């Protein structure tokens, strides 16, 4: 029996997937003439669904911001009691239930996803492939949205894992069909790499599953995948050694997704070859799946292991941050540089969590959100370089601000936001994480702080060598041949304006839409109740 229809989260998850599949089906079944005719309406329907999703997510947020506190899971389709009696099972025999819920950790991610999807659609409105196939583009993005939201809202690890892998499929096709010249290699690498990593995670999930007792009618194994049951259970994985093993397995899976050095090399290739919308989603939301999963499954279920492996987290984060930044400085490809900057920024998330301070964890969550706004802007700018100048080689052009003033303005905003300029969203996260970092690790703060200089250096240097200089006239890259340089289209401009405005709004007022407040509450509750539970400190 499935008791999920009517729950807003269920709708949020399944509507885009079914919608996208239907649209693709319609398109696929039509004959050639009609396909051409259908391509445009399908695009609009996709966008319409995406906007509807944004509206729904916003309404959920509004209701919660002004109504309830974010301390617990809201909009659960199935209370904990109902889970343990099996009344919302999906696959009864092995203990899989359809259990969704949302809290202050997942809501920002869900809202971010619903926000980014329409923006990416608008930015790459003309999916650049000719022919009827382009109608699939926006449907794939919509399908991606459902899968991503599924990851963030599902509280059943089986379903979580299914959605986790499902996100790969639309992204795989986006890269494979709309990617750059080396797209086939990149798509395969992306798929195989992240898939392999998630196998480790799957192993971890299975161990957790076999230690999570629950039985109801029809449950053959007597176990459950339900997350809430694990969280509330008193005897969930008793053995310390096993807990550590599971924690490390999960860490491998999540660290690859985030990605953290040394398992980051899939990211630059995937980004460079991916179409603009693909990179925007990849950086904006998919990387956050790793951080989200780590906070949700790693930190919440294994708080002792987080304390135990604090140094490991510190090293992972620090190496990603510093090494990522140094590698950025050595890049000659704009998009590759931005991709490595994501690696660097994701390192800060590990650092924030490793502080075990509410401020640091709140900063890490805010970093997920802020990076989710700023990095799509960066990739949109890179995309417009590729689109209008057919190259991403940093040194091959000068003075593009002449021919593309709007693109240059967006580049400036995005680059400044990403290097942590105050009054932009990234700075809030950086300050929060680094203050907490100093309170926990003291003088080590010098390393991340000095990295901020390198970050500023590679961003400013790349701007100097692309949009500036040129001595009074634009110097076009050789890839332009005889083409007239143009500025970005109004589609691109709209998307980038929204992202830039959001980055500034969240920098000036991080509590906009209740964001920082809910994250900070969540982090405080985590530290108070889970990491240092009351019985340890009466």
């Amino acid at each position, binding site marked *: 029996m*499935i008791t999920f229809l009517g729950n807003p989260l269920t709708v949020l998850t399944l509507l885009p997937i079914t919608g996208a599949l239907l649209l693709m*089906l319609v398109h*696929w079944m039509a004959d050639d003439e009609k396909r051409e005719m259908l391509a445009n309406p399908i695009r609009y329907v996709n966008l319409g669904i995406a906007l509807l999703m944004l509206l729904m997510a916003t309404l959920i947020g509004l209701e919660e911001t002004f109504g309830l506190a974010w301390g617990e899971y809201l909009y659960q389709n199935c209370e904990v009691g109902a889970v343990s009696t099996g009344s919302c*099972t*999906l*696959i*009864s025999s092995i203990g899989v239930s359809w259990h969704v819920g949302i809290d202050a950790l997942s809501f920002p991610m869900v809202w971010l996803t619903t926000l980014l999807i329409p923006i990416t659609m608008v930015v790459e409105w003309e999916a650049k492939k000719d022919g009827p*196939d382009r109608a699939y583009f926006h449907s794939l993005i919509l399908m991606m949205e459902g899968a991503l939201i599924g990851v963030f809202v599902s509280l059943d690890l089986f379903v979580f894992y299914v959605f986790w892998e499902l996100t790969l499929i639309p992204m795989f*096709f986006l890269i*494979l069909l709309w990617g750059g010249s080396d797209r*086939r290699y990149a798509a*395969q*690498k992306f798929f195989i*790499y992240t898939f392999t990593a998630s196998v480790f995670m799957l192993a971890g999930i299975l161990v957790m599953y076999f230690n999570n007792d629950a039985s109801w009618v029809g449950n053959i194994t007597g176990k459950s995948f339900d997350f809430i049951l694990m969280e509330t259970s008193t005897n969930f994985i008793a053995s310390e050694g096993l807990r550590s093993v599971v924690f490390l397995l999960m860490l491998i899976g999540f660290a690859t997704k985030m990605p953290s*050095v040394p398992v980051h*090399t899939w990211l630059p290739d995937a980004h460079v070859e991916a179409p603009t919308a693909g990179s925007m989603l990849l950086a904006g939301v998919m990387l956050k799946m790793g951080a989200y999963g780590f906070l949700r499954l790693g930190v919440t279920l294994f708080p002792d292991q987080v304390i135990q492996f604090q140094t490991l987290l510190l090293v992972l984060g620090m190496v990603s941050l510093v090494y990522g930044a140094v*590698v950025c*400085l*050595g890049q000659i490809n704009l998009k590759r540089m931005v991709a490595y900057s994501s690696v660097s920024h994701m390192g800060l998330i590990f650092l924030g969590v490793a502080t*075990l301070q*509410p*401020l640091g964890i709140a900063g890490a969550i805010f970093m997920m959100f802020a990076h989710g706004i700023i990095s799509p802007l960066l990739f949109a700018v890179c995309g417009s370089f590729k689109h209008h100048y057919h190259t991403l080689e940093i040194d091959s052009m000068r*003075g593009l*601000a*002449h021919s593309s003033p709007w693109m240059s303005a967006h580049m400036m905003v995005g680059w*400044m936001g990403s290097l942590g*300029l*105050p*009054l932009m969203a990234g*700075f*809030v996260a950086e*300050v*929060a994480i*680094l*203050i907490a970092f*100093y*309170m926990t690790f003291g003088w080590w*703060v*010098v390393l991340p*702080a*000095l990295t901020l*200089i390198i970050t*500023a*250096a590679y961003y*400013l*240097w790349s701007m*100097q060598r692309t949009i*500036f*200089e*040129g*001595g*009074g006239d634009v110097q076009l890259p050789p890839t332009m041949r005889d083409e007239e340089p143009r500025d970005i289209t109004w589609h691109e401009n709209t998307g980038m304006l929204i992202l830039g405005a959001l980055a500034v709004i969240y920098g000036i007022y991080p*509590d906009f839409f209740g964001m*920082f*407040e809910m994250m*900070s509450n969540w982090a*405080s509750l985590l530290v*108070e109740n889970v990491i*240092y539970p009351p019985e340890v*400190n009466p």
Partner: protein
Amino acid sequence: MEEQNKSEWNLVLPILALVSFLFVVLRMNPDSFGFDASTSSFLIVAVPLVVFPAILIIGQVYKGKDLWKHQLKEGGIIALAALAITLALTIWLIVEFFAHHAHFDEQGTIFDWITFDILLEDKALTESVFSFGIWIDSVSLTVLFVAAFLCFLICWFAIGYMNTDPINEDRNHRFFAEFLLFSMGMFGMVLADSFLWLFIFWEIMGLCSYLLIGFYWEKPSAAAAAKKAFLTTRVGDVFLMIGLFMLYDLYHSLEFAVIFGDPTLGGAVHGVDLQWPLFFMFIGCVGKSAQFPLHVWLPDAMEGPTPVSALIHAATMVNAGLYLVARMFPLFSEHHFEGDLSDLAMLIVWIGGITACMAAFIAFVANDIKRVLAYSTMSQLAYIFTGLGAACWFANEGYHHLATVAFGAALFHLFNHAMAKGMLFMASGSVIHEMHHAHDHVHLYDDDDDHDFDPQDMRNMGGLASKLPVTSTAMMLGSMSIIGIPLIGGFWSKEGIIGQAWNVYLHGGEMILFPALLVLATAGMTGFYMSRMWFMTFAGKPKTEAAKHVHEDTPWIKTPLVTLSLVTAFGGILLAMYGFQHFLGEDPDTAHLSSHGLLYTLRHAFLPEEMTLKLVGWTAILLSAGLGPFIAARMHGGRLDDGENATPMVAWLVDLSGSVGRTDVGELAEGGFAQALHNRLYIDDFYEYLIAKTILPLAKISAWIDKNWVDGVIKGIESGSQSTSTWLRQFTTGRASDYLLMAAVGMLAIVGILWGVV
């Protein structure tokens, strides 16, 4: 003349704004609205913040339209109106402050930025807030007035300077918008009530500095200078950030009210623990105020338009570092920190002394008129650092009266220097502007126009005193103020700083001897290089054809020059009589205008009781007002061409310079030391070499390693499973429909299995 009047007619709008604002304020009974100077002070930040995007957007849309371009001066008039309002608010605030300053201690918060919990040692959570609020005291009011007053005048100047240059056409709105954003940053930094918000606005100014230096971004030198400025100050800023983290860790707050206000909190912190945070914060100040060793960005920053140099790199932004040191000052005077922080105070003095002397040396050989002023700025800021360092030392050693005297002198110099240097930069802008126009005029029909002509090079000038009466007078007064000619502007404060530096020595701070000697010597050097600049520009014979055809006829740029000339000439002595130093250092009540004040001040300046101080003071006067200008006159002075008459205000100086004889220094200028000075003592080269030899190769190697080793492992695994991938490749046909079919079949299979199992 008529056209000129017509263009200044546009001033109706800003003046109207100013007058109507004051009118409304005075008519209204403020108390009944709960609206007074202090509660409305956030408007000083809010008005430019709101107006700047408006100018940017309207400018982008309406650029080229007649109304926008000629009536509104591409947004300049709007910016000026906004700055007029902030200036009016500032003045109102100052008036109110004098009326009842007791109520100004705490303004309350305006909004909470972020609220969060921190985990203390005992695993208890404590709530903490970073909020934004307004903090007003005599120090912030002084710097605020300097900023608001100069921003207003420089904006006025900029309308004349920027809008008459065709190269700026249709992009001046960007200039005025960034200018306003910068003003917002400066006002915000001064008014912020916590170190965090001070830092936030501090960085906003850094951004504006980057944007404005790179205003001519198509010039590679400007783009490089902008990057250099941002990155160099970023180095300091990052340390400042670390300092703030440490400070937060000590006090669990960054608000002034908490850090300075609560004696019990102060009691829980040890002075020794404060050494490092204050040291790191001081590094930030060194970067922002362009002190050795982070001074390299300031000379290059002269690539920006001249009003920017005047505003940012002379008058306001570089004062940010000084302001932060002044904000740190109360910590030095905390009673139980006695002696703990005197090493740090000494470091501040040393940095000041070294920079003062080094910058003055480099200014000896600079030929670019703006660079002379840039190095002079560094040198004068270093004086202020020396004074603040001395104040900190006194405070930390328990000499509270002397501390306030030194502190007052330092901030007084900040005021005098900002006014004089703002004017000097504007005057230099006027010179450059007119040189440029004259050059264009001379070579109008010339085919072999030499593009290498540099209107900023003083070797192309000479004899301009007769052509630019207002500018030459202003520049003379400004230079005198900077040199410290007795009774004019900077004299009052500079004497105080040098005197107090030596006073530290007399009170047992032997370590100060070297920097104290340096600042004393620098007084004479200042006399030389400022006079050299003036003589090279205005005295002697014109050295190029262009210099013969210069006319002072650009509208808008005389008014600010005259205004600031008056301030420079009389402001110093008036404020000295008033006891401005005491206003800054001690209870504002003790300051009042009186003839007794004048006598006291005069005696204090010329005849201090201590013999050493008397000696030092007169040495400084002789060096700066006598020896330095004398040598400069012998080297670069000279009478004008026959038939040319300078305005009486400066004619005496030109004649004087022509009557002291002549020394040829060609040989000296070829010497090794002069070459080193030309190359800025190789410090920039050293940094560039260091970067090119360390971080850049490291980055290249890391990128290579990442591609070939880290990723190579993965690739190895891949090629090992080559056969598998060959097999897999059969399925990658490259046609979307095939893939979608496969995906759909897979999805259907999954759904089917799920349903079946259920």
